[in-house]
């Protein structure tokens, strides 16, 4: 585990959720900073959150504008993705950090290699984030943020748990939907103890978008083929099931830097591609 990265994740998670008064009062921040979406999955109803969740905001604009996709939010997601790719997942996402910390709990671990289950997150993106908010509406023409409502364990952990614990009126309104979402959170927590970042790998719609942009993002994991010995050390250390010596731009790669650190011949590097070395990251 890269402790420097963990420290960075911790600092960014705290900075994104540092309106501490909210945790004492059981309320949320209502300032104008919520006009800006944060890059990772961080619920805007977390009592400490200063910014907005990009996936929640995307659905909110869908719901209020009779099915028009939000240029503002999709532009922000595109900007984060084209600059950083899934580096956001590895370094800036608070819910990614939560899963990594759970994985540190001593237990029997299940190593999951490349699997077709990874395509599930694209289905979640299309069905729950785009199609259902677009097509399923009440008699007033208002839709729901279906991913947030039915799935998102980050919202349950960061918003529901503290708000319901601190706010009696909200607690009294909790019903079957809360039980369903709490069950998903418990399943995610248990799965995260035994497997590395299961939510990011198989469910997260934001990770799906950033994964698609991994191949063209400015920040790249690059392989110097001239010195790579194909020893397999990078593949062995990768907990996301990626083989960087075959495809350093794999959509599953979260740019955690573990493979860079373990490479005995320093064939891998993370950053802006120099364009000088023979690389397998891009076709340009």
């Amino acid at each position, binding site marked *: 585990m890269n402790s420097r990265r963990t420290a960075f994740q911790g600092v960014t998670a705290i900075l994104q959720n540092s309106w501490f008064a909210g945790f004492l009062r059981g309320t949320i921040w209502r300032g104008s900073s919520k006009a800006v979406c944060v890059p990772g999955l961080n619920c805007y109803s977390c009592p400490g959150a200063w910014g907005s969740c990009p996936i*929640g905001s995307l659905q909110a604009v869908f719901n209020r504008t009779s099915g028009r996709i*939000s240029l503002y939010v*999709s532009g922000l997601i595109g900007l984060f993705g084209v600059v950083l790719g899934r580096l956001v997942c590895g370094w800036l996402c608070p819910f990614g950090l939560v899963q990594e910390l759970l994985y540190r709990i001593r237990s029997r671990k299940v190593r999951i290699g490349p699997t077709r289950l990874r395509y599930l997150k694209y289905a979640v993106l299309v069905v729950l984030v785009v199609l259902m908010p677009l097509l399923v509406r009440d008699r007033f023409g208002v839709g729901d943020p279906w991913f947030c409502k039915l799935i998102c364990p980050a919202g349950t952990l960061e918003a529901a748990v503290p708000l319901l614990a601190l706010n009696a009126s909200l607690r009294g309104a909790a019903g079957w939907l809360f039980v369903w979402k709490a069950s998903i959170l418990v399943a995610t927590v248990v799965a995260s103890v035994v497997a590395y970042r299961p939510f990011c790998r198989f469910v997260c719609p934001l990770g799906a978008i950033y994964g698609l*942009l991994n191949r*063209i993002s400015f920040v790249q994991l690059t392989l110097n083929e001239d010195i790579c010995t194909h020893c397999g050390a990078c593949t062995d250390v990768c907990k996301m099931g990626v083989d960087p010596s075959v495809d350093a731009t794999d959509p599953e790669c979260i740019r955690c830097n573990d493979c860079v650190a373990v490479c005995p011949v320093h064939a891998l590097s993370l950053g802006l591609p120099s364009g000088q070395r023979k690389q397998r990251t891009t076709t340009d």
Partner: protein
Amino acid sequence: MRVRLLRVTLLVLSIAAIILGAMNGEIRTVVTKAINVCLQCIGIG
């Protein structure tokens, strides 16, 4: 070269989308949603 062009094009499109979306008043929708407790997110909506 193709990827580099795609990368820059997407960057420009993203920035243009942010500006156009802001001009369309989408920021108000985002703020309105975000400053109120999202009942769906906490499982009671």
